[in-house]
Every structure is written in C-alpha cells, then in structure tokens.
C-alpha cells in the first residue's frame, strides 16, 4: 500500500512523465542510428533495406517506397514513420514481414532469460549474503574466486563445457533444440520435454549472470552491515538471522535490483551465444541466421527491437527504484 502511494505521488510529481519523455527521445535516437548505419554502410542502401536476394524490380520498388532518390531528411522521415507504424520491412528469406519473423521468436528467448534471471538472482543473492557474513574467510574467498572465474569465461565457453560433459559425455540432458522433434508430445509430457531441454541453456546463462549478482550483493551487504542501525539491532538482542535477512538484506537489495535491470542488454547478448550453442530457437539464433543469410532487414529490425527493449527495461528499472527507495528524489 505504501509502495503504491509512493509510486503515485512520484508520478504526479512529473517524474514518470519526464522519464517517459526521455525514453521516447532515446528510442527516436535509436531509430536514427539505425537509419544512419543503413546509409553509411558500403553498397546500395536498397540492398540493406531489402536483403541480398531480391531482383532489380524489387529494388526499384524499395527505392520508391523509402524515397531513396529524395533528400536524406525526407528519407529519415519516411523511415521513422514506417517504423512507427510497425513496418520493419519484409524478409525475403522468411517470406514474411520482419516484425512477424521477430515476434515469433520472442517467447523462446523470454522463457530462457526469465528462467535464468530467476535462478541467478535467488542463488546470487544467497551466495552474496553468505560471502558478506563471512567476509575474508575461506568461504568468501572461494565464492569470490568463483565469481571472477564466472566472469572470465565467455558464455559460449561455459555452454560448450556443459554440453560436452552433461549432454555428450554423461548424456543426462538433451544437447540441442527446445523440444524433441522425433515424437509428438502433448500436455505434461511436452512441458517436461521442454524443461529437460531448458536445463543446460538456462544454467549457462544463469552462471554468467550469477557472478555479477553475487559480487554486488556482497558489496552492498558489507556496506549496510557497517551501519549504525545494524549495531543497534544487534545491541537490542535481535537474532542474527533477522538482522541479516530482515534488516540488512532489505536495504542491500536496492542496488542489486538496479543491476538486474541495467544488465538486461548483457543478458540479451549472452542469449545470442547460448542460443547458438544449444540451437535454441529464439532471437539470438534468428540474429545468427539472418547474419549468415545476409537478411539485412531482419538484422536491422532485431537491432532496433533489442536496443529499444533495453531502453524500456531501464525505464521500468528507474521507476521501480524510485518506488522502492523513499530516499531517492529525482
């Protein structure tokens, strides 16, 4: 209840509107960057707007559609308004509008990312708290070394290692795809099948992310544990468990939440590699395929949608942060 009141009072204070306008402006900039890249790239912009596999007649149609013989400012306007209408072009490779090709793949990537974020947030916070409680002990150093290690391995390498050990050598989990293609499954069986396919990719993505959350929780917890109200609570005889989880963690979680939000882009790039390693049919896989087929409209559409989603997630994180921390005034 208090949270909601705070959120509302802040939004009436113009914070929400200012942030929303800013996000809108950023998205306009992103579309312009896309436009700029299309025109700066060597070769005919018509080829990049339509892909390499068209014929001369199709390129003529594209040139007319995007006004490629008109001044650049007019072209930018045409581009902006067609993107605003949700028209990201047509993919010759998939014989479908780009927007349809992309949205077909969104659920698979979302499933992968949300699962990984949940796993790594819970485990990362738990390990971070443990490391902070025993600062500079063996446990702390072990957790820290693991974090640096997790941070140093490229996500595709983590994926390859898990793949070699658990799918190829031990044969516990399936190595590729999102479900078994050979058999028709339905209901619960299908769910279990997808679940078993999810284990390795989700673990890979979670390991990469875990290190980050763990380190941040540890730093934040150490800061909070040094504050006076913790000493007061201990002096009053509050149990250690309550001090840690009830008092300290509640305050330490704020920066962790921001990082979970602001690392969204990192998570997406991790998904590209992991989807490649495990042949997971999501956005990352689509990006690699469109790269290989030189299907530029899909590639540029993906770039635009991914960077827009990063802006939107940052916007939501800002709002959540303002709502959760009464000290923050923008």
């Amino acid at each position: 209840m208090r949270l909601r009141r705070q959120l509302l009072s802040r939004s009436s204070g113009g914070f929400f509107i200012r942030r929303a306008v800013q996000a809108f402006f950023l998205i306009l900039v992103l579309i312009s960057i896309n436009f700029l890249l299309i025109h700066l790239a060597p070769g005919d912009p018509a080829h990049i707007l339509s892909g390499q596999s068209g014929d001369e007649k199709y390129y003529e149609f594209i040139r007319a559609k995007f006004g490629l013989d008109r001044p650049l400012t007019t072209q930018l306007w045409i581009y902006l308004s067609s993107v605003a209408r949700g028209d990201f072009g047509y993919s010759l490779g998939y014989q479908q509008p780009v927007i349809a090709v992309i949205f077909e793949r969104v659920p698979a990537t979302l499933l992968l990312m949300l699962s990984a974020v949940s796993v790594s947030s819970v485990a990362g916070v738990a390990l971070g708290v443990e490391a902070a409680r025993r600062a500079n002990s063996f446990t702390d150093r072990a957790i820290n070394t693991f974090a640096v290690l997790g941070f140093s391995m490229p996500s595709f390498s983590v994926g390859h290692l898990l793949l070699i050990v658990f799918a190829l050598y031990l044969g516990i989990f399936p190595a590729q795809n999102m479900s078994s293609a050979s058999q028709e499954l339905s209901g619960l069986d299908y769910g279990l099948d997808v679940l078993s396919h999810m284990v390795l990719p989700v673990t890979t993505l979670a390991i990469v992310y875990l290190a980050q959350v763990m380190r941040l929780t540890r730093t934040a917890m150490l800061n909070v544990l040094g504050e006076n109200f913790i000493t007061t609570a201990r002096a009053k005889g509050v149990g250690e468990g309550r001090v840690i989880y009830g008092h300290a963690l509640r305050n330490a979680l704020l920066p962790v939440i921001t990082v979970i939000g602001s690392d969204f882009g990192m998570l997406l790039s991790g998904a590209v590699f992991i989807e490649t390693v495990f042949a997971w049919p999501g956005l990352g896989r689509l990006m690699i395929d469109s790269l290989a087929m030189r299907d530029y409209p899909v590639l540029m559409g993906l770039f635009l949608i991914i960077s827009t989603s990063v802006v939107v997630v940052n916007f939501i994180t800002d709002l959540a942060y303002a709502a959760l921390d009464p000290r923050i005034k923008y």
Partner: protein
Amino acid sequence: MITKTLKQDRNDESAARRWNTWRSFKRNRSALTGLILLAIFLFVAVFAEQVAPRDPQKMSDETFRPPSFEALFGTDDLGRDVFSGVIRGARTSIFIGVTVALLSGLVGVVVGLTAGYAGGLLDDLLMRITELFLIPPRFFLALVIAALFGSTLFTMIAVLSVTYWPTAARLVRAEVLSIRERSFIEAARAMGASPARIVFHDILPNALPLIVTNFTLMVSGVILVEAGLSFIGLGDADHISWGYMLHNGQHFIRDAWWTVFFPTLAVSLLVFALNAVGDALNHALDPKSRIEYLDKPA
C-alpha cells in the same frame, strides 16, 4: 620554498601510496596468479613463431587426431594443429585487445580530461555526444557494424574502439571532477599555473591509477567481445583467433571435443588473468573501489 615543500609532500605521499599498493597487491594470491599467467600469455604471443611447433594454417591428412605427444591439443577437421592455433590466437587476441584499449583509452582520456576540466558548455556538449554512443547495447552495435562494414582485423579494431571509448571518457571525467576540487590544485592555480600545466602536471598523474586499472579491465572486455564476434562468424578469417577456432570447432564438438576445449581454456585463462590483476589493482589503489566490472559482453 613553498613550492618545494608542497611538491615534497606530494612525492612522499605518493611514494607511501605506491608501497601500500604493492603490499596490498602482493597479498592477493589470485592477482599474483593472474600476473604470472599474463606474463606467460605475453611471452607466447610475442614469440608465437618460435613457440608454435607447426604453421597453424597448414592443412594435413591427419584430421581429428586426439591430443597426443605429436599434437598436444590434437588436430581439427582440416588437420591443422590446434596447439599452434591456440598460440597464434594469443597474438591476435592480445593485439586486438591492447590496440583497442589504447585507442579508446586515449580518446576517452582526452575527452574526459577536457570535459572534466573545462566544465560548462563544452562539458555538456562532450557528455551528450558520449551518451549518444552509450544508448545502443555495445555488443549488438559492434555486431551490426561488423556485419554491415565487413570484418577485417582493421574494421574489428575500429568497431570495438568506437564502442569502448565512451565508458573510458565518463570514468576519466568523473575522476577529474573529484581531483580538481582538491586543495593542491587550488594551490597550483593560486600560484599562477596555466590550465595546461594543471591538467597535465597535476590532474593527469593523479588520475593515472584509475586509467591503468580501467585499461586492464578494458583489454579483458575487448578480448571477450572479439572472441564472441569471431565465434558467431564475424572474425577476420585471415588471422587465426580463438573465436574463429571455436566457430569452426563447434560443428565437430561431438567427435572432437579438443577443437573447442583448448581455445575455450585459453580465452578463459587470459580473461581471468586480466580480471584478477585489474581487480586487485582496483582494490589496492582504492579500497572503496570505484569500478565494478565494465560489463560482460560475451
């Protein structure tokens, strides 16, 4: 006379700080491990021709040989020696990492120093431009530019520099803003030192620890992104790199795990070494550590 004492003071202070820094660094075992690993990688990269037993590009009939005494890391689908490839790859990775970190570090330092010291309109303008480059997610920007402009060694370096300088610029600017408020800067100004002297003689040396730490972490970040881009097929095929070997090896992972395992080990160890050293420097120079990791792009 006064000048002398001030200077003396500062020298004493910095000597003491250097000593503390080294002591704190030395205590950190993972940092020492990192330093040793780093030395090995550098040696191998510089003397790649002498260390590698064979030409890493040379094909032979002996395809998919598992690791043995003749071929330590085995051979790949074209009979190329994986051990020699890993050694040559060290050179490519380190070359790209260091060049990009130097280039974008230089641009970052110039922009950050100017913006931080000049302040006002120039600061605003430079920072808005910097932020513009930070809007699109770094990895995807690099990917799209490499896809559109082609991926030679040169474009790869250009692309990565374009995406890395803004972080350096922002970091240096923040540091300059805090240094210029300190009293010895005020003293220098009161004694009539020119802005150029203040910037290069007083501010820059004090910002240097941060710049060096950032450099180390930047090299590791760039190496990861480069490996990632090569892994998805955007590398320069003329120069053997770990990412390229992984890209090529992933199709044979079922039958020849060594084509993937050893390049993976190499990237991970090098990046671990750089991170451990950068991390330790970071803590040694400033226990309250300002830089968390830049980001994990790959």
